[in-house]
């Protein structure tokens, strides 16, 4: 059964969640910009999300017929990868927090988050509009 909210809303919400996670990590990196021996941490989810979406849209099993139902993407089951095993090179200056990189990823991430928030807001506005127009 189709609910009132399309599945893309859940997906958008999940991505916003991941972006907030990333924002937290980047803030941790920036806060530790002068901490010796601190290794910058990263959170990667885009590629994995993409493949999870593809996988689920086509079903985890091979579909032998177009009439078979694809399994729906579940936003709840998805998680990003924290790059723990990321091994930095131990050369002075190479493995320390790169402020340029962190600030850029912060800005990028924040903008994407805000854009997604706008998308989700427009979703709801559209929904409201449909409901209101139907009442007339």
């Amino acid at each position: 059964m189709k609910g009132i909210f399309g599945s893309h809303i859940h997906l958008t919400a999940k991505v916003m969640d991941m972006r907030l996670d990333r924002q937290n990590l980047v803030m941790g990196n920036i806060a530790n910009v002068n901490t010796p021996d601190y290794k910058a941490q990263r959170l990667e989810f885009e590629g994995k999300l993409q493949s999870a979406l593809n996988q689920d849209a086509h079903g985890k099993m091979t579909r032998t017929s177009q009439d078979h139902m694809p399994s729906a993407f579940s936003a709840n089951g998805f998680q990003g990868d924290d790059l723990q095993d990321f091994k930095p090179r131990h050369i002075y200056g190479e493995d320390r927090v790169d402020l340029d990189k962190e600030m850029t990823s912060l800005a990028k991430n924040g903008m994407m988050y805000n854009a997604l928030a706008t998308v989700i807001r427009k979703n709801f506005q559209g929904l409201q509009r449909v409901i209101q127009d139907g009442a007339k």
Partner: protein
Amino acid sequence: MDFMTALDIGASGLKAQRANLNVISMNMANMRTTKTMEGGPYRRKSVSFEATPVYSPFDTAMRDKLNQNLQGVKVLGVTADERPFKQVYDPHHPDANDQGYVFYPDINVVEEMTNMMNATRGYESNVQTITAVKQMFQRALQIGQG
């Protein structure tokens, strides 16, 4: 994982950089101090930082794995620099020794200024992160406004 965590991390960064700046200005102010409470000239101080987990151990056990890697920063301590004092020949100085030498702390203004710039930039970037998170928070609130 929520907004308040992000703000806490940012605040820890601000606090650390401010502590750093305090110590740097203390060094600058005391660059010609020849007498201290402990006796002898002033010793140059430096701050050491430590990355510290944001959550308490219980939280760490309870929350999902991603959160456990979040790290804020804290000031581990202020340590005295062991570099030798500068010897200046000035027999008329009240703190001159028998040979007429006065010991001054070996504080390099350029070094301190560089550290100061570093701390200021660090502080500013933390302010930026907090501003960004506040904007994100505003946007998230606006979702509810239809």
